[in-house]
C-alpha cells in the first residue's frame, strides 16, 4: 500500500456486504422457483464443457456460467479460460469466444 492509498476513499465494508448479498439473494430466489430460468445453469455449464472438451483440454474450474440482473435485463455471462501454450489440434477449428 503506497502512501497515497491512505487518502483514497475505499468502499466501506457494509457497502460490499450489501452488494454481495443483493446478487446472491436474487440468484437464489430465482433458483428456488423452477421455470424462472436460473435452474438450468448447472446443466448448461456441463454441456458447454462437453462441447469445448472436444476441441481443447479444459477442466471444469475454467468455465464459469453466471446469470446477473442489471436493472430490468438479465445478463448471461460465460467465462472460459483456455489453457495456455497448447497449439490447436490440426484440423479442428479453434472456437472463439467473445
Amino acid at each position, binding site marked *: 500500500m503506497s502512501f497515497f492509498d491512505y487518502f483514497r476513499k475505499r468502499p466501506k*465494508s*457494509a457497502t460490499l*456486504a450489501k452488494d*454481495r448479498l443483493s446478487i*446472491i*439473494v436474487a440468484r437464489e430466489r430465482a433458483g428456488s422457483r423452477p421455470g424462472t430460468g436460473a435452474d438450468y445453469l448447472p446443466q448448461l455449464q456441463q454441456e458447454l464443457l462437453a462441447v469445448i472438451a472436444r476441441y481443447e483440454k479444459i477442466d471444469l474450474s475454467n468455465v464459469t456460467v453466471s446469470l446477473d440482473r442489471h436493472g430490468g435485463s438479465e445478463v448471461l455471462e460465460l467465462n472460459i479460460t483456455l489453457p495456455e501454450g497448447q497449439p490447436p489440434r490440426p484440423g479442428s477449428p479453434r472456437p472463439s469466444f467473445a
Partner: protein
Amino acid sequence: MSKVVVITSGKGGVGKTTTSANVATGLAQEGFKTVAIDFDVGLRNLDLVMGCERRVVYDFVNVIRNEAKLQQTLIRDKRVEQLYVLPASQTRDKDALSAEGVGRVIDELKEMGFEYIICDSPAGIEKGAQMAMYFADEAIVVTNPEVSSVRDSDRVLGLLAAKTSRAELGGAPITTHLLLTRYSPMMVKRGEMLSVADVLELLGIPLLGVIPESKAVLQSSNKGAPAILDETTDVAQAYLDVVSRFLGQDRQHRFIEDEKRSFFGRLFG
C-alpha cells in the same frame, strides 16, 4: 382465538431462543396465556434461558409418543402468571417429531386455552426447523446485520412461503416479521455494518423491531431470567416495544440511531 408463532432464522446463534423467551414472557405479562415450545430436539436450551431447567420431568417427545400427559409436561413459570414452557427432548432420534404428533400437541394446547403458542425453531432447515414452522400463523424471522444471517433468512422466507401447512392447504400466507438483533448503530454509522434499511431492502418484509447489541442478553441468560423482566436495560425496552408492536400497537422504532453519549457515558459505557 389462539395464534401459533414461529421464531426462526436458518442461521444459528442469532437470537432465536433469546427472542422466544422474551416475546413469550412479554405476551404473558400482557395477560395472554402463553406457551413457549422448544423444537430443538437433542439440544434443548429454552429451559436454561428461561431458568426452569431443574424442573424438567417430561418433554415434548414424551407427549408426542403418549408417554406423558401435556398437563404434567408443561412447566409453569414462577415469575409470570399465564406463562408456560414445553421443553425439548434430549433424545438423539432425529425423527422424533412427526407432523401428526406436533399437530396433535398444538391442537391440545389450543383446547387448553393458550392464546399464543411460541415455537422456538432450531437452526438449519432440517426436520426440527420444518416442524417448528409447519403450523405457524405468523413468523418472526430473527436476523443479524451480517451476510450469512441475511442470506439464511431469505432461504427461510422461501420455506415459510412453500413448506408450511398454510402454503400446502392454500390458506392465507404466513404473516412474516423481521427482527434485527445484535445491532450496533455506531458500527452502522461508520459503514462497518449493514443498516436496518439495507436489510429491509434485501429481505422485503416489515420490521418488527431492532434489538441492540448489549451485555444484558448474556447477563440475563447467565441468570436464567429473560431480559424483558428487568425494564432498566435497553434490551428489555426493545423487547417491550416488539411485544407491543406485535399486538398491533404503534411504537416508534428505537435503538437505530447512534445516541450522542456524554463524555462520562462513553467513559463508563
